[in-house]
């Protein structure tokens, strides 16, 4: 598809920055470069490092939910002492979750994970082709693909709105955060997941801004989108874990 036309100036200055010989200018990208040493700005190495950082960050998130889960299992198994009657009783009242709405929310989140994956693949391809594009005179045609990132942001916000609806339904059924341990845990798990997902939405907005406004080289954008995508997939996985947990330990 490329057309070779020497003696033509390259249109896109960003692409030239990324692939050309001149050292790219970058501010506060957030990482250093270790062993490389060949002088080139090694995006592959940066990506690997960022992914390692993400895996470790997610380990911390997992430990947070390990804490919640063990608390849930222990709390459910405990009889509660009634000081007035001097007897033990079980105070665990199963919570009535709006399963239909939760199913819809789950579907929205899974679809968003899919669109996120499309966004990740699109930018990976674009980044791979960047060096070709930087050859003077090579054009790959107009590359305006479907706005997968934007779609993911909207779906993510849709999920959060759906969760707010779940919250309201619970309120209408008089399941408040302090009604009983089952509702306390449901609110806790939903809210903690929502906070983490909101963080993901902000990261996606940053990724979108990085491509439109900050004029970062395509490889740097790709790293942001790639990390946001894996984080997003993890959030979907975490959501499924939470739903299954609340299904089993009601």
């Amino acid at each position, binding site marked *: 598809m490329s057309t070779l036309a020497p003696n033509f100036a390259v249109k896109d200055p960003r692409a030239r920055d990324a692939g050309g010989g001149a050292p790219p200018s970058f501010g*506060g990208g957030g990482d250093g470069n270790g*062993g490389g040493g060949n002088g080139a700005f090694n995006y592959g190495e940066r990506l690997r*490092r960022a992914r390692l950082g993400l895996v470790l*960050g997610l380990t*911390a998130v997992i430990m947070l939910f*390990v804490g919640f889960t063990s608390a849930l299992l222990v*709390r459910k198994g405990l009889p509660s*002492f009634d000081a007035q009657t001097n007897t033990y009783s079980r105070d665990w009242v199963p919570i009535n979750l709006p399963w239909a709405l939760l199913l819809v929310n789950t579907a929205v989140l899974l679809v968003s994970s899919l669109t996120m994956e499309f966004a990740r693949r699109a930018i990976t391809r674009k980044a791979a082709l960047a060096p070709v594009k930087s050859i003077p005179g090579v054009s790959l045609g107009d590359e305006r693909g479907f706005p997968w990132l934007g779609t993911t942001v909207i779906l993510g916000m849709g999920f959060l709105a759906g969760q707010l609806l779940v919250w309201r339904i619970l309120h209408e059924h008089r399941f408040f955060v302090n009604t009983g341990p089952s509702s306390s845990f449901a609110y806790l798990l939903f809210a903690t997941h929502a906070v983490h997902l909101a963080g993901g939405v902000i990261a996606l907005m940053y990724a979108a801004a990085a491509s439109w406004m900050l004029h970062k080289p395509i490889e740097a954008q790709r790293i942001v989108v790639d990390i946001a995508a894996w984080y997003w997939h993890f959030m979907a996985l975490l959501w499924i874990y939470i739903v299954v947990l609340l299904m089993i330990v009601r």
Partner: protein
Amino acid sequence: MATSEVVHAHAGPQGFIRKYIFSLDHKVIGIQYFFLALTAVWVGMFLSLLMRIHLIWPQANLPIVGHIQPETYLALLTMHGTIMVFFVLTTAPQGGFGNYFLPIQIGAPDMAFPVLNMLSFWTTFVAFVVMLAAFFVTGGAPLHGWTGYPPLSALQSTGPGEGLGADLWITSIAIFCAASLMGALNFITTTLDLRAKGMTLMRMPLTVWSWFITAILGLLAFGVLLSAGILLLMDRNLGTSFFVPMVVVNGQLLGHKGGSPLLWQHLFWFFGHPEVYIAILPGMGVTSQILSTFARKPIFGYRAMVYAMLAIGFLGFMVWGHHMFMSGMSPYSAFAFSLLTMAIGVPSAIKTFNWLGTLYKGRIRFYTPMLFAIGFVSLFVSGGLSGPFLAQPTLDIPLHDTYFVVGHFHLIMGVAAIFGIFAATYYWFPKMFGRMMNEGLGKAHFWLTFIGTYAIFMPMHYLGMAGHPRRYSQLTEVAYLHNLIPLQTFMTYAAFITIGAQFIFVINLFWSMLKGPKAADNPWDATTVEWTTATPPPHDNFGGQTPVIHNGPYEYGVPGAARDFVMQTDPAVGAAH
């Protein structure tokens, strides 16, 4: 070298704010952590002094605090423990020295994620400010101890400090968790991904190993503490019952029902025990480094040292129950926790044996860092030996609520870790500030602190065996404690002298920073990579060069070498090594 600018990810800082306040340079961030910890340790020490004065002169009218009520005493105790554990013992060795020297020792230009590194420091700073704010709100600081056991910590009405003060305390801990997690993932990524060419895992200095293992412990432990903190905040403010059972306070039945105070203890100590190793492991690393350097001998059993630290870190996650023998846990669980706890004695003994093996027949140079490193070994043994006592439920149950435990954990976790920090300060000060510290003042500081801390904390073991309960604020009111008051008085005088000695340290620190003699690049004839670069190191650590590593970290007394040491970046020593 044009490419060197490219290799280093962020440009050299311009302007005061970018250079010294919101710096991305791991060296500046390390120094920021160091001074945060230095501030915190003076606050913590001041609180302990107030407690010691109150114990023997309960009627004294003190400046600032006035006459100390029993509740105030508990608030002092809580804040002393919290500030010392979190903002000194966790902050200085890892955030301070780890930040400054981990990248340089592995030949990296900076941490893996400099922006995250900066965020991590400033988040810690915010946590410290929130913690101190607890002193100034209505009711003052909380009185639930650094372990924050519910229901005392979970209800607003249990004491004067348990209102807003306790909320600030928990919030501060939660913020601190987030900061530590950021730091931990940065340390691990840096160690795994940014090592210079030739810096294999088994050529890493033991300091790097200790920071690396500490970071793994932090990554796995702080998330669980955060979860517990969130649950506790909900119990306090949203009326949930995770930790609070049905409870009557002042004749009034509160709305809580069915929660388990023991659940908090499990979650807290799952963090709390690894936290002990988070505090002490970097001290072990720096002690190994210094003993080898100043004994002019390779560290005895390098690999064994690495495996011992890994074993301590691993076992550290399986022994939290030994803090809870008093909670009425099943004797079978207690037995399992007891055995696992005593198993930690094995890697600890390996480390001690190897330290002594390193000293054996060494040509020891008794500089101040070496004195503090030997002091660390001494305190580690003295404080550690009471560990197997307390690991047994039959002994722990009578001793647990006595001064015996206070003596034990202050020697091993408090003072030993502080000696690690002092050793690191005297050892690395020339590299960090480009000047030497005064040896005479350093030695005076060492001897006074060494003898002083033993004088404070050794008698606590006797007090404990005599049945003296801990956390009591009024000793003069209790008849059976009267005979023990002279010992308490002796400890308070020892505390005065020891705290006085710390002024020598501070004067030495600041005076040397400004007026000390200029330091050479490698004043201790040491081998690791930080001593190959300029003093103090340039912004990218190596002035555009990328070090290549050819040797292990402790090549001292190498036969046939020109000097008595071979640096890690020197050409490889013979096949015999």
